[in-house]
């Protein structure tokens, strides 16, 4: 499971395609890049080594995938779209409400303790769907969007890898 983003810098029409693989490797426009981004302080300051080039990044999230960044002091406005947002845009819809399917992936390797939803269940945004035990703690995985459960791919006792898809949430049904 990799995650694919289309990223627009400073209002340019041509996006940068960035794929983040579950092993942490990053592909930019089809080319693997060596990147190390570490957090310095607050929620704001980061140091990025990109193929050993050092960049200081100040970042503020504006919501809806929009970021304001200072990279080495130069200001950039960046919009990051994941596949769901891209589909949303393709369907010409607004930016609210889910269109298409969303996968709840394992954010770390672990053991599924409980599955809290069944196929067909409506779920609200932030509603817990799976309990995953990892690093000796129980972690509640929540629905990133509201919708209807389309598939449940694991059951209690399943050992899952980082990034593995656990539950698929489809768009909410018309009558909800």
């Amino acid at each position, binding site marked *: 499971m990799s*995650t694919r*983003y289309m*990223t627009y*810098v*400073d209002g*340019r029409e041509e996006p*940068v395609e*960035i794929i*983040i693989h579950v092993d*942490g490797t*990053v592909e*930019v426009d089809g080319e693997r*890049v060596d*990147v190390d*981004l570490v*957090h310095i302080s*607050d929620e*704001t*300051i*980061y140091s*990025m080594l*990109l193929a050993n080039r050092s*960049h*200081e*990044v*100040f*970042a*503020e*999230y504006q919501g809806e*995938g929009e*970021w*304001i*960044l*200072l*990279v*080495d*002091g*130069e*200001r*950039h406005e*960046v919009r*990051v779209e*994941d596949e769901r947002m891209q589909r949303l845009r393709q369907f010409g819809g607004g930016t609210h409400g889910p269109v298409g399917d969303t996968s*709840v*992936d394992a*954010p*770390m390797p672990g053991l599924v303790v409980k599955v809290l939803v069944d196929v067909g269940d409506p779920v609200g945004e932030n509603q*817990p769907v799976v*309990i995953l035990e990892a*690093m000796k*703690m*129980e*972690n*509640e*995985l*929540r629905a*990133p969007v509201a919708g209807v459960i389309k598939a449940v791919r694991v059951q209690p006792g399943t050992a899952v890898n980082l990034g593995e898809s656990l539950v698929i949430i489809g768009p909410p049904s018309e009558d909800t």
Partner: protein
Amino acid sequence: MFQKVLIANRGEIAVRIIRACQELGVRTVAVYSDADRKALHVRYADEAYHIGPPPPGESYLRLDKLIDVALRAGADAVHPGYGFLAENATFARAVAEAGLIFIGPSPEAIALMGDKVAARKSAERAGVPLVPGTKGGLSDDELIEAAHRIGFPIMVKAAAGGGGKGMRIVRTPDELPRAIQAARREAKGAFGDDSVYIEKLIEGGRHIEIQILADEHGNVISLGERECSIQRRHQKLLEEAPSPFMDEDLRRRMSETAVALAREVEYANAGTIEFLVDRDKNFYFLEMNTRLQVEHPVTELVTGVDIVKEQLRIASGRRLRYKQEEVTMTGWAIEARITAEDPFNNFLPSVGVITRLQEPTGPGVRIESGVFEGFEVSLHYDPMIAKLVVYGETRGDAILRLRRALNEYRILGVKTNIPFHRRLVDNTNFIGGVYDTAFIENTPELLQPTSQKRGLEAAIAATLLMHQRRQKALVYVAGTDDATSRWRLAARMEALR
């Protein structure tokens, strides 16, 4: 020396003055409006008093309140900074009448230099060159004769006028009669008065000013010039000392002229005489600022004289500590004014809270700042939030150091003019010292946001952060709604990377 000084100002200049006082062992009293309770000048001062709501007219311009606070706090002197009441003769007089010392020139000198006509007359008496021209009410023939005496190009201007109406630029003698006629018609139509006059047109002029110091015992010295031609709509953006246009002879002539004017008006304390200098190194009186200037630090760095401390010493009656021949300019200093304005959107003021701030430091870098993380930039006050001043052995050293310092500067929360300065220090004409007051106007690329780079670094950083954010949003630690554990987990995830 004074025991306690009230600073009738705010922002970076109030902080600057407080520091000078502290370094002289003088106690300080700050005043603040509702908008400035948290401001640096309040925090750095020994005492602070509230004087009213944010609009200056209800606080920083209320001389009654300022004098009341000064008396309550037991201050023995008042420093006005620049702006607000700094060139207000009534305030200077009121301070004196309250038995306090005004750290600046006499009310008479302030009033005299604040009146354009009176100031020009004083300049004339002191032998300061004025832009050559005629008075109004002359006949066409008299005007034509005067134009030949003054030399072309000239400007024909409506005597009653303003706003460009009835104004004509004339480059050759044969254009003149028609231009006078046209100007008269326009003036008549616009102001009901066809009287016009002629003034020499100064093309490619530079704005260069001379800093003077004068004590109350008749001693006056020049601290040399500052180059202030990097302006936009008469707002200075960057200043340097010395001027790249200067030579020893011109400096001496301008300094002597400035000192003569100060003597003519019996000036005491720090002051600045602004000149327009043409390509042939003729200079003409513009105006005299009877106060500390924003850009005073560049002079301090090249002369080694602390102008604010000298202001305090002079106002306390001491004699100047320097003789003219002891003043030398060593090295090069540049000041970049950092404002909360968007250079790519017509310098529109940008308001908001400064969420992150990281100021440059290191060799040869001096920051005069009025802001901090959490500071709210409001529309009530000047958009200048800090001054970045650099010093180097040579102009080249100073420019490279300025570039380095600009690259270290980080301000988040409001847009600033830092990108403009970054472009400026890379401009070849600026680097070559080849610029006049029309430079910004004639160099539109300085105000273009487009960069050749694709912004790949920004794309990658934002995407990784977005990805991390998505991951975090997905995970809550079961069995607790405590915010901290959530973050602990996030931190752990980060450690996994």
